[in-house]
């Protein structure tokens, strides 16, 4: 902004009063629309929160404001549904998958970004194609494969693939690794480092923000994932993750909208907390990749 002003070689003439008033009104209108949109975006969560605090009779009535506030709904949710077990299952999936994504995708991204070898471009193209394909395309043979390994009904079919490279993470990490100056790597090579040591001492340290972003995306994705866990554990309630439990919650508790909304908010809460806790690391990662992208 200031740079642009400095380089502007002419002095701005004062704008006529009518123009200034028009601009002011435009700015007000702009903010008014934004605030209205923001309220509309917050309203659904607000309604969910209000309903989650109603008694079940109130939730079925036309009233919008809970009277009295039924705080115990949030206790009831945990006593009426095995939310803790669903949470443990979800953590098993999310944590193991996220570690797997990092361990497997970092070296692949490095090889794609910084090493020269025949077929590298073809390999990168295939990563891009894998990124584009709907999961439904490959799901039937994979289901058959896991069924033959007797792992349908457990969470392993959704965890194990993450230990063998994730296309999105490889892509994102590669883009970041491309921006690391070659001199750093050369300096390490001159010192006699092998590529593996360069990767784990130099590159990983420089790429911390990108790695944090990948870990965050991976965790959120697996936490929110529904299709694949449903496919493999739908029939086995013992291994349900939070999302499946939530989707079945209402059928377990006939039409109790207040409890259903409380459960919905309980499932949303970790995501919201992670977002606010990690917002800084997240934004840092994104801007860092954006500065020299």
């Amino acid at each position, binding site marked *: 902004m200031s740079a642009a002003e400095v*380089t502007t070689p002419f002095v701005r003439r004062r704008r006529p009063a009518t123009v200034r008033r028009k601009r002011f009104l435009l700015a007000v209108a702009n903010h008014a629309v934004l605030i209205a949109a923001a309220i509309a975006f917050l309203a659904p969560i607000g309604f969910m929160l209000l309903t989650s605090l109603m008694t079940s009779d109130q939730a079925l009535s036309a009233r919008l404001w809970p009277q009295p506030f039924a705080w115990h709904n949030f206790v009831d949710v945990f006593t009426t549904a095995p939310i803790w077990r669903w949470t443990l299952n979800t953590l098993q999936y999310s944590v193991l998958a996220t570690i797997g994504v990092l361990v*497997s995708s970092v070296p*692949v991204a490095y*090889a794609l970004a910084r090493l020269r070898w025949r077929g590298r471009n073809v390999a990168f193209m*295939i990563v891009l194609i894998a990124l*584009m394909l709907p999961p439904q395309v490959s799901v039937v*043979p994979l*289901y058959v494969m896991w069924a033959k390994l007797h792992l349908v009904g457990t969470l392993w079919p959704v965890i194990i693939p993450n230990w*063998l490279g994730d296309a999105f993470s490889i892509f994102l990490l590669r883009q970041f690794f491309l921006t690391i100056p070659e001199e750093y790597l050369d300096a390490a090579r001159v010192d006699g480092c092998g590529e593996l040591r360069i990767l784990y001492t130099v590159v990983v340290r420089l790429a911390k923000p990108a790695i944090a972003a990948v870990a965050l995306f991976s965790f959120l994705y697996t936490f929110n994932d529904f299709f694949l866990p449903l496919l493999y554990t739908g029939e086995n309630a013992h291994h349900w993750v939070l999302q499946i439990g939530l989707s079945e919650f209402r059928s377990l508790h006939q039409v109790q909208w207040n409890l259903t909304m409380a459960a919905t908010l309980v499932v949303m809460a970790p995501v*919201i907390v992670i977002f606010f806790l990690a917002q800084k690391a997240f934004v840092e990662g994104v801007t860092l990749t954006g500065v020299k992208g």
Partner: protein
Amino acid sequence: MLLLMSPWLVGFSVFFGYPLVMSAYLSLHHYDLLSPPRWVGLANYRYLFFTDPQVGAAVKNTLWMIAVLVPLQVLFALGVALMLARARRGIGLFRTIFYLPALTPPVAATLGFVYILNPVTGPVNNILKRIGIDGPLWFQDPSWAKPSLVILGLWGVGNTMVIFLAAVLDVPQHLYESAELDGANWLQRLRWVTLPTISPVILFAVILGVIQGLQYFTQAYVAGNIASGQASQAADVTSVGLGYPEDSTLFYPVLLYQHGFSDFQMGYASAMAMLLLAVSFAVTLVIVLNSRRWVHHAAGALK
């Protein structure tokens, strides 16, 4: 090198190469997971294209969703991003508010919307009633179920919006200034400066939107299940309620799921997967090839 690439080489072969080949193989067989695959030639494809009474509806619903939701999402995200870029205050707060819904789990968001848009007890119709409007039946009405899903989709537009906002803020300031010197008004600056500069980002959003439209599943599955009110009992997730009401939320991936994993017609589901594969490829290709006409690629002159 080989060592570094090895996880991906295994992963690619097992989870990408093998399923594609196997899908093609299974699509020519009758297979129910219990007895060995039986060769049936092109029968699965014949059934898919000519006989299956639900494929027509599923394809139509999927195309409807893509044709309506993707342009609306792009326009909406762009509009909000442009307004945010002009806002002088609170840009961070607004960005958080608009972004947050995009992070919420799709299952939770869908449940919330099915309740909020509940025709009788939901707050939206209650408020509409107070101002004298009889609200629609939303997820209970075949002609309103998809529009309800569109509203849900627009609520989750934050991701696209954040990307657009970054792109809009990245447009070089001097371009606006020279346009202003030439006497361009707000609309002309948008048309000739902003849009051309961010067009690659818009293209990216459109491709992503179409690809996601082709795999639209979770919201439709949950909405159909909950709205039908016949959600299955614990430990027995069946496909009761899929497509409810009257197949209006029966999307192609939902139908594929039903055939493959509740009827266990693995061969037929593979044929459906092959069609989805072909369409995904074709769509991406068509969009990318056509994009040269309207996407501005930053040339050397700018750098």
